[in-house]
C-alpha cells in the first residue's frame, strides 16, 4: 500500500520541472551559479560575488576536497548549478555537492581501445536538465543532470584518424558547439553544432578551406589536405551579434612552413561564425604562416567599452605569439596591438592592419634558431580574466625562448605527430612565469606578480567583484591577488600541480571558490567556527 501511495505521488507530478537551466540564465554574468567554461558568454571570468573580498580573503579555508583516482592531470573547469558541481576527467563526469564535496553521481565512458585515451578534457556544459561533455574517442554525451543517465551520445569525429575532443562544449540557443584537436597530427580542424535536445547535427564548419573556396589560395598544391587548424578550446559569444568567436590552432606541419608557403588560412585566426548557420562572418589572423606552433586558441574576451572616445564592442586576446590584440568584434577590424612579453624577437611590431612585421631569419632552421617566445608561447590555453571595476585584463604570461629546428618529416595517416621540427626550451634564468595586469584598451602593463619557481604556465585566472584575482600555479600554490595592485593576499599549498582555472559560486548563502589540481578538486570558503553544541 505504501508503495502504491508513493507510486501515485511520483506520478502526480508528471510535468514537474527539475533544475532547468534556461537560455535567459545562460546570458547572465556569473553570480550564484557558474554556468560556462569561462563563466559567461563574454569569457570575462568576472564573478559578481563579493562575499569573499580583498579585505577578508585572508581567512579563506579549504572546506572540502574531492579526489579523483588515477587518470590524466585534470585540466577541467567545473560548472555549478544550484550548488551541484559538474566536472570532468578524460572520459568521466562527476556530479558532486558543492557544499560538502560529496559525490552525487559519476559517469564513466569505457573506451574500446587504450589508444583512445589520448588528450585532455576541459569541462562540461549545462542546459535545461542536462549536462554535456565530449570524450577522447570523440563522442558528445548528453546526460541527465540529476542522475547521470545517458540521454544521447553522438560520434563527432574519427578517433582512429587521430582526432580527440578536449574542449568543454559550448551551448547557446539550444545549440551545442563542439571542437576537435587533430592537434599536431596533420588533420584538419572543424566545428560542429548539434541540437541540444535531440543530438541532431545542425552545421559543420571546416577551419581549412577546400580548393576553390575563399582562402584556399593561401595553401599551395595539396598542402591544404594536412593543414591543422584545430578547434582546441571553448569560444565566446555575443548574443546581440549572434556571433561565436573562436581562436584556431596552428598549421601543419608545425615547424616547417616550406611545404605550405602562404598565409595558411584560417589557422591561427580569430573567427566569427554565425551561431545559427556556422557561416564565417569575419576572421583576423594573428600569425600568418606560423612556424612555431603558436595556436591562436587563447580565449577571446569580449568587452563593451569606450575605445578612443567611441563606444565599441571589443574583442581582446593575449596571443601565444606574444602580442596583445584589441579587435572590433562587429567587423574583425584590428584596432590596437602591443607585445605583452619582453622576450619577443620574431617581429618588430604590427602593421596598421595588425599584421606582424617579421624579423628576417627568425624562423626554425636545420641548425637551430633562437626564437622568442618559445613554442609553448607567451600565453596558452589558461584562461585570462577581465574586471570591469579595475578595467584591467589579467593574463598568465611566460617569458622564455626556444631553439627551433625544422626537418622534412612527411604526413603519415593514423594519428601520428606531424610537426617537422621542434624547439629546445631555453630554461635559463630569464625563463619566468607571471600574472600580468594590462590596461584593457592600451595593453600597457600595470602590475605583474611572478609565479616564483613555476617553470610552466600552470592554471588560469578568476576575477571577482570582491576585488580578488584567484590564480593557480604549476607548483601547487593557489593564490589570491589584490586585483588593483597584484599583491598576493592569501595562498594555499594544494600539494600538487594546478593546470586548470578557478571558479566561484554561491551555495546556501556561502561563497565558494573551487580549483582542480592534478587529481583533486578543492572547495574554499571563509572560515566560520563550527556551531557549539546547543544542548
Amino acid at each position, binding site marked *: 500500500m505504501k*508503495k502504491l501511495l*508513493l507510486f501515485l505521488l511520483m506520478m502526480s507530478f508528471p510535468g*514537474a520541472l527539475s533544475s532547468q537551466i534556461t537560455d535567459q540564465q545562460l546570458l547572465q554574468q556569473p553570480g550564484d551559479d557558474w554556468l560556462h567554461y569561462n563563466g559567461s558568454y563574454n569569457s570575462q571570468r568576472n564573478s559578481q560575488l563579493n562575499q569573499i573580498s580583498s579585505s577578508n580573503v585572508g581567512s579563506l579555508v579549504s572546506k572540502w576536497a574531492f579526489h579523483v583516482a588515477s587518470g590524466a592531470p585534470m585540466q577541467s573547469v567545473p560548472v555549478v548549478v544550484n*550548488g551541484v558541481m559538474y566536472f570532468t576527467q578524460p572520459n568521466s563526469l562527476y556530479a558532486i555537492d558543492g557544499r*560538502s564535496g*560529496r559525490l*552525487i553521481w559519476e559517469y564513466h565512458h569505457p573506451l574500446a581501445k587504450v589508444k583512445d585515451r589520448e588528450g585532455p578534457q576541459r569541462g562540461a556544459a549545462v542546459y535545461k536538465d542536462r549536462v554535456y561533455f565530449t570524450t577522447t574517442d570523440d563522442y558528445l554525451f548528453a546526460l541527465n543532470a*540529476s*542522475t547521470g*543517465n545517458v540521454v544521447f551520445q553522438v560520434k563527432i569525429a574519427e578517433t582512429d584518424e587521430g582526432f580527440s575532443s578536449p574542449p568543454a562544449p559550448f551551448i547557446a540557443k539550444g545549440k551545442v558547439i563542439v571542437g576537435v584537436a587533430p592537434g599536431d597530427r596533420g588533420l584538419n580542424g572543424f566545428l560542429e553544432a548539434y541540437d541540444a535536445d535531440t543530438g541532431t547535427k545542425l552545421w559543420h564548419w571546416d577551419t581549412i578551406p577546400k580548393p576553390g573556396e575563399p582562402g584556399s589560395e593561401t595553401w599551395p598544391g595539396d598542402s591544404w589536405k594536412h593543414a591543422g587548424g584545430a578547434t582546441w578550446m571553448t569560444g565566446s559569444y555575443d548574443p546581440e551579434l549572434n556571433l561565436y568567436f573562436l581562436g584556431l590552432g596552428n598549421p601543419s606541419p608545425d615547424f616547417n612552413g616550406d611545404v605550405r608557403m602562404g598565409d595558411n588560412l584560417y589557422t591561427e585566426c580569430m573567427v566569427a561564425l554565425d551561431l545559427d548557420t556556422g557561416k564565417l562572418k569575419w576572421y583576423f589572423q594573428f600569425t600568418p604562416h606560423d612556424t612555431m606552433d603558436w595556436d591562436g586558441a587563447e580565449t577571446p574576451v569580449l568587452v563593451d567599452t569606450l575605445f578612443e572616445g567611441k563606444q565599441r564592442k571589443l574583442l581582446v586576446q593575449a596571443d601565444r605569439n606574444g602580442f596583445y590584440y584589441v579587435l572590433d568584434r562587429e567587423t574583425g577590424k584590428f584596432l590596437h596591438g602591443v607585445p605583452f612579453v619582453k622576450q619577443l624577437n620574431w617581429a618588430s611590431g604590427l602593421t596598421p592592419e595588425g599584421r606582424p612585421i617579421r624579423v628576417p631569419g627568425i624562423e626554425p632552421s636545420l641548425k637551430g634558431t633562437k626564437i622568442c617566445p618559445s613554442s609553448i608561447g607567451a600565453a596558452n590555453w589558461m584562461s585570462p580574466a577581465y574586471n570591469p571595476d579595475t578595467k584591467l585584463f589579467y593574463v598568465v604570461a611566460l617569458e622564455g625562448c626556444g631553439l627551433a629546428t625544422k626537418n622534412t618529416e612527411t604526413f603519415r595517416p593514423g594519428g601520428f605527430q606531424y610537426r617537422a621540427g621542434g624547439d629546445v626550451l631555453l630554461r635559463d634564468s630569464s625563463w619566468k612565469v607571471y600574472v600580468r595586469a594590462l590596461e584593457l584598451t592600451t595593453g600597457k602593463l600595470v602590475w605583474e606578480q611572478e609565479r616564483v619557481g613555476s617553470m610552466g604556465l600552470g592554471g588560469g585566472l578568476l576575477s571577482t567583484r570582491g576585488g580578488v584575482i584567484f590564480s593557480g600555479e604549476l607548483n601547487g600554490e593557489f593564490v589570491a591577488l589584490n586585483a588593483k595592485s597584484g599583491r598576493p593576499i592569501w595562498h594555499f599549498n594544494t600539494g600538487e600541480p594546478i593546470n586548470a582555472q578557478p571558479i566561484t559560486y554561491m551555495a546556501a548563502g556561502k561563497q565558494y571558490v573551487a580549483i582542480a589540481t592534478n587529481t583533486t578538486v578543492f572547495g574554499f570558503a571563509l572560515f566560520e567556527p563550527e556551531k557549539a553544541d546547543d544542548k
Partner: protein
Amino acid sequence: MQKFWPISLAIFSILGMRFTVAQTAPPRNPVGNSASTVKAGRELFNQTCTACHGMDGGEGERAPALVGERRFFRLSESALYDVIKHGIPGTAMPAFGMPDDDIWKIVVFIRAMRSSASEIDVAGDVAHGKEVFSGKGGCAKCHMLDGKGGTIGPDLSNIGAQITLKRLKESLSEEGEIPRGYLPIKVVTKKGEQVEGVAKNIDGFSVQVLDYQNKLHLFDRQELRSLEESKTSLMPHNYDKVLTPQEYQDLLAMLSRQVTLQLHKKAEGEGEVGR
C-alpha cells in the same frame, strides 16, 4: 674472471629455466562453450561438487560459493581448470582425477553461472518484453532504456552486461539489499521543508537527495530536524507474480539483451594458479 664463469653459467641456467616456465602456454579449453556443454558441465558439477559448494555452486557449507563477488576469484578458464585438476594445497579442495574433458565441462558451467546475463541466450519475445517494460510492468516510470524513461531508479541500458541472469531474476522477484544511491529517504528541515526521494549519497554530515520530480537537494545534516530511511526499496520485487509467466520471461529476455558496452570482469590475482 675465469673462476666466476661457472657461477655465471648457473645463474644463466636458472634464468633460462624461469624463462621456460613463463613460456608454458596455459591449458586451453577443448570442449567449447555451447549450451549443451554448459548443461553437461552442470550435471557433472551437481554430481561431484555439491557436497562442498552446494547445488549450482550457490551455497557452499564446506567451501566458498562459486557465484557472487569475492576477492581473488578465479575467473579465467585456465585458472579454473588448474584448481580442479590440481586442487588447492592446505584446503579441502582436492585434485580431481576425472577425465580432462569433464573438468573442462565443469569449467564452462562455472563460467556460465558467473557470466553476465547478456552472455546467455535467454529465451523470450524481446519486443514483447519492451512492451511489458513500458506498459504493464511500469518499469519505465523509474528506469531508463536508451535515454527514455524515469530517473529515480538505475539506468538499465547496459544491465545485460552488468549483472548475471541470476541477479537479474532476484531483482525482479526477491527483496534484497537496497543498492547505494537508491535508499528511499524522507527529510524534514528545521525550517519545516519536507523532501522525499532517494539518497544519492549520505554520511554523518551531509545528505544528497534526488526527489521524485528529478530535482537534487543538498543538505548539511545540521539543517535537518529529521531524517527517515526506508527499510525497503522502491523497486517492486514481485514481477514473477504480477506478470504472467510469458510476460515475465519476455521481460527477462529483453533486459538480458540490454548492452551498450561489454564490461570486462576483473578480480585481484586473476590468472594466478593459487599454489
